């Protein structure tokens, strides 16, 4: 996975966050942006097969996911195990992945996506999970959001 692909993923994620979740994302390297993963971390991943095979993922804080859910739901839950917040971040990754594949797979061939999955991790476990993978840290509404590509 080249640096170009990570750059494409960043561009797509910023566009989707703005258009779908009404959240503003700043690209990597933004002055004053977050530099560390959240504690606890929600790691959300999605895989694809077919004309292109691989996967992408995101690490977010529960706070950012709750904020995204609040933008989707008129009456967001604040308890109940964060079901809405987890569903919201999975759906966002699903849309990011579909739009990302459209940019990198230019021949219009079918790529099958899996259902996104989410795991709750400590900061240490999340750091270990993304270690060595191509990645980029965004700042979204003041929260860290790490995009990565499964290798």
């Amino acid at each position, binding site marked *: 996975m080249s640096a170009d692909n990570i750059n494409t993923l960043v561009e797509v994620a910023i566009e*989707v966050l703005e*258009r*779908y979740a009404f959240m503003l994302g700043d690209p990597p390297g933004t002055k004053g942006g977050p530099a560390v993963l959240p504690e606890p971390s929600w790691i959300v991943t999605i895989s694809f097969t077919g*004309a292109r095979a691989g996967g992408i993922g995101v690490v977010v804080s529960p706070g950012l996911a709750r904020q995204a*859910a609040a933008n*989707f*739901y*008129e009456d967001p839950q604040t308890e109940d195990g964060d*079901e*809405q917040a987890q*569903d*919201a971040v*999975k*759906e966002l990754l*699903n*849309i990011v*992945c*579909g*739009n990302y*594949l*459209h940019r990198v*797979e230019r021949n*219009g*061939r*079918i*790529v*099958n*996506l899996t*259902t996104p999955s989410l795991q709750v991790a400590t900061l240490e476990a999340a750091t270990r999970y993304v270690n060595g993978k191509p990645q980029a840290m965004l700042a979204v509404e003041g929260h860290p959001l790490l995009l990565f590509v499964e290798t």
Partner: protein
Amino acid sequence: MAYNILIVDDSLTARTFIARTLQMAEVPLSQVYQARNGQEALDLLQRVWVDLVFADINMPTVNGTEMVRQMRAMDLLKSIPVIIISTDRSAQRMAEMREAGVQAYLTKPITPEDLKAVVERFLKSA
């Protein structure tokens, strides 16, 4: 005239977003039904009448492609317009869905203008 709409998607967030976007587009709505997959939708359609179905493709149990094929094989349901709302933007998938019998294909993220246009195209002329 107000319409009965069915939204089929395994994501509650997606269903909620589509329902809210229909409201933002000022589509006159009587009932908005929701189903989490194609099987739930087919079961629901045995009990209620809807004017239009918005459906995802990638869903557990019965996916969107199979749901549309089953609807097109049933006398009671074959005339209901189905609009796909998916993250899949491949030309090959769109062709596959047209062949299965969908009327239109929108890609996420959708806008109120997108939804209003398809509702006007498929319902106001009916």
